């Protein structure tokens, strides 16, 4: 297990998050330029990128970011408006920063200068100093105004040695707003006093925009043997009691005691008739709420830990092995007759299943992070295409396996591009059709059993089934005049070599069609449904499993071999009576509640040569709209299992999506239902043809 973590990589990972955050924030600012919190967030993100960039040796990135940060500092101070132009440049600058950090050597020369010139144009000052990688360090950022709580007491002999506390106090005052108060507690009786000793101490607050080091400089020559404490305080109005406790002037316990004896302010005010009880109650509630919020934020800050994804994968793998070993142990225990062993096995079973769930949970990531990335895409593309399109999202909190989310990115980009380009019409056309000028693309995610449904809905022109059909016939995908239902026609879009776009744009229609999307989704064991109403829009629905690592399956036996059918595809199990079997021979149709369901004999399909068994079962599975029966010899039961991918040698085997190791150590293949049905139908028609 590799444990060495490259600090630069860690920085890059952090920077990536910051860039994402910055992008979201910039887009939000574009929508609401007056939101001060957003400006602050953008500024802070830039500040952090600059600071840690310099720390890890990304001097060019840091120097470049410095100028962008300055621009946002001006915005923050109200000296510059957060215009669309500024956001535009900032977004471009963000992309450039990312290049500077991810692949500094790949950064196009002159790009920094060009962007900074644009930025300078917006700020309205002369060209900003050019930036090159040789620029060693950016000028130190103007530190933010900070309030320090100071306490100092000079050494007893300090004054005798020539130090003058008055000069120190004067110097402190020159640093900023300074409130110092003498602390006379140290003054002894006159009789006990050394007249030239130093007994006074001072404490108070200093609000300054000078760095912390400036304070140390003041005390530089008297620092030996002196007491000096400097701490940062949040400049907020505090209650007397809190300040006393913070300064260690009184213990928290003593304060609480004193407060208990004193009537509450609220009660006092009510008694005096100055305020109603309700108002006090409301104010107290607000106080409590704010306090809770603060604590929550503190908790959230502390609860995060960064872990390499590869370690999670490793953990998942090991948990998988554990689950398999546990299943074998169980089989062994059941074979024997030891009650202690059996109860222990049950305990281990419970623990390992909990461990598996927890591990799965760690890998789950809310899909919102993925959705967030599309805002920029939609913004930039709609601009390029001259369309007005808003992206709305829902269900961002829906959690999916990290791997699934990563592999969803490209297909989703493709689908969204399609909606933007082919779906939503140009504003003028929309207006002439009585639609609002601005089109909408809605991204949503929702849990549905062990699956997640992701929908991309647009209110555009919709898909014209007639055109799709014509195109498919032209390309030879379907024979002319074939009878197809509307959903079947829409599915044709997913076929390789299909594109209805007459015009090739930079956005889509470059021949990389929806078939790529379909393949990607297939690999995720997902499906795509297309629904569309001509004139009012289309919806693409992606059905995806929650995780790729584990599958809920039905374990069945065919001959000697055992197979797992994904439970999500299973509808019901029925018995194939000897009578049905005989009657069905040749036609292979089953009558289930007055509905004819075709079935496949897995035994024949897999070329299993064992004697026919008397009680065969049919597992009815569904893929999309089709229901098909799979004839098996025995249904063993439901089985949750860890998927092991097949080796490269078996990569051409399409009917199985993977394998798993059973309790007794043998291997069971996991059936890829849609592919198996395709394969079955193909071999059936072959049989008929021959």
């Amino acid at each position: 297990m590799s444990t060495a973590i490259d600090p630069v990589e860690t920085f890059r990972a952090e920077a990536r998050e910051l860039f994402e955050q910055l992008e979201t924030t910039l887009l939000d600012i574009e929508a609401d330029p007056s939101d001060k919190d957003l400006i602050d967030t953008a500024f802070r993100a830039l500040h952090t990128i600059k600071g840690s960039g310099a720390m890890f040796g990304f001097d060019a990135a840091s120097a470049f970011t410095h100028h962008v940060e300055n621009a946002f500092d001006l915005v923050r101070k109200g000296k510059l408006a957060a215009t669309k132009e500024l956001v535009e440049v900032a977004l471009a600058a963000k992309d450039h920063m990312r290049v500077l950090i991810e692949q500094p050597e790949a950064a196009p020369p002159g790009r920094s200068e060009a962007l900074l010139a644009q930025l300078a144009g917006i700020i309205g000052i002369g060209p900003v100093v050019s930036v090159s990688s040789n620029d060693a360090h950016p000028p130190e950022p103007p530190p933010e105004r900070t309030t320090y709580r100071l306490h100092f007491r000079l050494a007893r002999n300090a004054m005798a040695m020539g130090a003058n506390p008055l000069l120190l106090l004067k110097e402190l005052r020159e640093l900023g707003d300074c409130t110092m108060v003498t602390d006379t507690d140290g003054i002894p009786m006159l009789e006990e006093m050394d007249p030239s000793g130093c007994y006074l101490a001072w404490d108070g607050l200093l609000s300054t925009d000078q760095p912390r080091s400036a304070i140390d400089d003041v005390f530089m020559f008297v620092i030996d043997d002196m007491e000096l404490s400097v701490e940062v305080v949040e400049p907020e109005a505090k209650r007397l009691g809190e300040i006393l406790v913070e300064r260690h002037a009184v213990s928290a316990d003593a304060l609480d005691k004193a407060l208990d004896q004193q009537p509450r302010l609220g009660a006092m005010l009510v008694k005096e008739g100055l305020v109603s009880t309700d108002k006090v109650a409301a104010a107290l509630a607000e106080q409590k709420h704010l306090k809770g919020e603060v604590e929550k934020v503190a908790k959230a800050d502390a609860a995060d830990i960064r872990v390499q994804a590869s370690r999670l994968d490793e953990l998942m793998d090991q948990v998988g092995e554990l689950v398999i070993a546990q299943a074998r142990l169980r089989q062994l225990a059941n074979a024997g007759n030891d009650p202690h062993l059996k109860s222990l096995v049950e305990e281990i079973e419970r623990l390992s299943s909990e461990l598996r769930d927890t591990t799965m949970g760690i890998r789950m990531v809310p899909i919102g992070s993925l959705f967030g990335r599309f805002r920029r895409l939609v913004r930039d593309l709609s601009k390029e295409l001259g369309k007005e399109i808003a992206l709305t999202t829902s269900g961002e909190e829906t959690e999916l396996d990290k791997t699934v989310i990563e592999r969803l990115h490209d297909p989703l980009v493709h689908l969204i591009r399609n909606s933007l380009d082919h779906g939503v019409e140009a504003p003028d056309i929309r207006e002439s059709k009585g639609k609002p000028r601005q089109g909408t693309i809605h991204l949503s995610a929702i849990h549905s059993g062990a699956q997640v449904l992701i929908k991309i809905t647009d209110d555009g022109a919709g898909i014209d089934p007639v055109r799709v059909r014509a195109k498919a016939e032209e390309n030879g995908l379907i024979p002319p005049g074939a009878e197809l239902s509307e959903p079947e026609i829409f599915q044709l879009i997913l076929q390789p070599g299909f594109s209805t776009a007459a015009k090739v744009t930079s956005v889509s229609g470059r021949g990389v069609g929806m078939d790529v999307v379909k393949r990607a989704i297939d690999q995720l064991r997902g499906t795509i449904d297309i629904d569309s109403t001509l004139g009012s829009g289309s919806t693409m629905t992606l059905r995806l499993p929650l995780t790729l690592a584990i599958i809920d399956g039905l374990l069945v036996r065919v001959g000697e071999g055992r197979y797992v059918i994904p439970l999500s595809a299973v509808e019901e199990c029925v018995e194939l009576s000897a009578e049905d079997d005989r009657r069905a021979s040749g036609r292979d149709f089953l009558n289930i509640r007055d509905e004819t369901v075709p079935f496949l004999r897995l035994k024949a399909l897999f070329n299993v040569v064992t004697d026919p068994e008397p009680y065969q079962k049919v597992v009815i599975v569904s893929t999309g709209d089709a229901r098909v029966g799979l004839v098996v010899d025995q249904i063993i039961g439901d089985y949750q299992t860890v998927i092991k991918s097949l080796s490269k040698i078996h990569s051409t085997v399409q009917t199985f999506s993977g394998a798993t190791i059973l309790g007794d150590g043998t291997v069971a293949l996991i059936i890829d239902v849609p592919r198996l049905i395709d394969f079955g139908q193909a071999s059936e028609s072959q049989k008929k043809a021959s």
Partner: protein
Amino acid sequence: MARAPTVVIGFTGAATIRQADDIARQLKQALESSDRIEVDCSGLTEVDVAFIQLILAACKSAEAAGKVLSLSAPAGGALLEILTICGAQDGSRAQFWLEGRTA
């Protein structure tokens, strides 16, 4: 016991660490000789932290002995300036310095 008259000690010119021993001795003598001591600071032209400490220490001793030490007039001039820099005006002895007596 007859009440001793108020003793007034006046300081003029400089009252700094260089004069500290001298001032301490004068204050001690005054405290020993009477129950009521008045300190006249109006003639001071130069003051530093040492003087302020001495006056504060004298106050403490006076209080401990049940005696009264007061300023003949609220602090002004050089003394007030130093008190301001020290932040003693906001401290616990503010009333003493600014009104000339302890609470």
